[in-house]
């Protein structure tokens, strides 16, 4: 059981890549990229988990209480922001692609360029 979080992360990483490979719609593709990214959240948080630990917030629990690693949580926060911004830019590009070429399908986009 202790290996499950890492296996889930590996699964998400690959299934997201698979989605990018077979995608016929750029919006779907950007969402698949977010799936790839969610695997990084899981692996980061998993390496910082401490069995039986609480959240590293010592407002109503005393300092010294067993808590999980706070650093990976800060890293994940940064990762989330990176994901949001990249998605915004890629979606903006997709909006423009659709305006210019009338399609969001990478397949048609590749073949229509003649």
């Amino acid at each position, binding site marked *: 059981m202790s290996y499950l979080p890492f296996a889930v992360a590996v699964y998400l990483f690959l299934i997201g890549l698979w989605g990018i490979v077979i995608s016929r719609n750029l919006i779907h593709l950007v969402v698949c990229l977010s799936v790839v990214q969610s695997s990084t959240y899981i692996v980061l948080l998993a*390496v910082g988990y401490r069995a039986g630990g609480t959240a590293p917030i010592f407002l109503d629990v005393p300092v010294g209480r067993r808590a999980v690693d706070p650093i*990976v949580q800060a890293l994940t926060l940064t990762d989330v922001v990176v994901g949001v911004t*990249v998605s915004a*830019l*890629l979606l*903006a*590009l997709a909006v*423009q*692609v659709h305006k210019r070429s009338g399609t969001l399908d990478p397949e048609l986009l590749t073949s229509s360029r003649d």
Partner: protein
Amino acid sequence: MDPLIPLTVAVPLLAAALLAAFSPFVTRRVIELSSIAVAAAVTAMCLLLLSGASEAPLVYWFGGHMPRDGLALGIAFVVDPLGAALAAFAGVLVTATLVYSWRYFDAVGVLFHSLLLIFLAGIIGLAISGDLFNIFVFLELLSVAAFALTGYKIEETGPLQGALNFGVTNTVGAFFVLWGIALLYGRTGALNLAQMGETLAGGPVDSLVVTAIALLATGFFIKAAIVPFHFWLADTYATAPLPVCILLGGVVSELGLFAFARVYWTVFDGALASSHEELRILLLAAGALTAVVGAVMSFAQRHLQRMLAFSVIAHAGLLLVGLGLMSPAGLAGAAVYLLAGGLVKASLFMCLGILQHRLGGVDELRLHGRARHMIFTGTLFLVGGLVLAGIPPAGTYAGKALLEEEANLLGLSWVTPLFVLVSCLTGGAVLRAAGKVFMGWGPPPGHSGGEEDAQVGQETTVERDRTPAVMFVPALVLLTAAIIIPFVPGLLGGSEAAAVAFADRPAYAGSVLLGTRHPITEARAHEWTVPTELIAGAASVIGAVALAAFTLRRAPLPQKALGKARTGAERVVGGLTKLHSRHIGDYTAWLTMGAALLGGALAAALL
């Protein structure tokens, strides 16, 4: 000296925020002038850091969180001469680009200037950061700015698709890097490069270490466009606005390799010290493959921007060969070559921008003979081609000579012929284009249809009479710099000394974690004007000229004589071209395959 270190990043960022906030209240001229002034000031600051760091690396802890008993709590900047030099080089290029694009981005006002300053801060942070996650943050910062800038031409599908492919592949690359960081953090509990290296050096080389280096290498190689992770680059650089290409082609692709070298020599070198031989074979193979693919594809292009894009890939390959020598001398040669090659590529992209400005296009066949009257730009372009081919004693030649000498010392005699071949093809492509566009040599176009035209966007037929000085002067300055590099006093020896420090993991760890001072001792670079190197340099140039002349001949040679060789070459190029399908799904499939192959090869090499 100390406060200067954070200011190199803080000043351009603050300036970007202020420019964006105050843009409605000031004129465009003020925005342009102030952004140029900021970029120039930041460049000067980086040069000051370079002179300070060339005595001993400078360490700066943000927030005053000094390490305790080898445990780093905060983030450090570690300024070594190579990192500072890269930062200063980026500053020069950004300044030159801002001058060059004085009137280019009229439509978007302050956005371009702000993004460019953010981009500069990203490069500087990446170059001197001593923290792996911090490197990731700065890599993403400059990538996000670059994604937006490459998609600037929203009225055409080509650039938009190029920017999308750029964004998707490079973001996947960032996630590979992040996975590598997570694995290393799970093992070492550190993000500081020096601390990670110390912990790994005392531990085993097992599945985790191999996977971590494979994932980090994949991520950085995607950014550096190493085969088979390179596909996105040709699409993006061939369609992005030319002022943006100056930066992309001049310095950005190389950042991936710099990051890889930095991480390897600070984190992994201790643990993998006994596997240098195996790693060398692997990196050299990847570098050689990349160089050849890039050079062949470059020569096969008629769209000049796409041609230079593949040239960038070929140069990344040569740089990886330099890193793959796994020695300080190899690093020093690569650094000199990065500098000189970056300058000449930037200058050539500037020339294309002038062609675009004057004649409304950059297609070799369409422009056939139409630039005969542009003598100055033509001369610049021609000399640029010769420098790209590595004409002695230009900086590109010096960099290659240093690498070839080191390779020969290591018994790798095939490196010199590889360099000559790649130089012939990339230089020859530029010379051929110069002959066609500026001289009107070669068979005039006519029969050849516009099959490739639409790939590269609309070309207008606007013609302008004058080349603005702001476009010509930066191109001239950068090209001159590329030529005189070897004669800058102390540059070659200094780069050798800097490379020795760069590759000295224990010294790096000592100065970061214990605060000990490790003075950088003087070193002598290899001789770069020995007869064998001069012959190799001459062979590159003669080969490039001959190749260009061969393709420019008016009368077609008898088919029989060359029939077989020719169809063979055409088949290779055709096959390669087919692989560059512009389909993001293809590219992702390739990069997955590449990651698996790299992982497998590293596992075989290291265990």
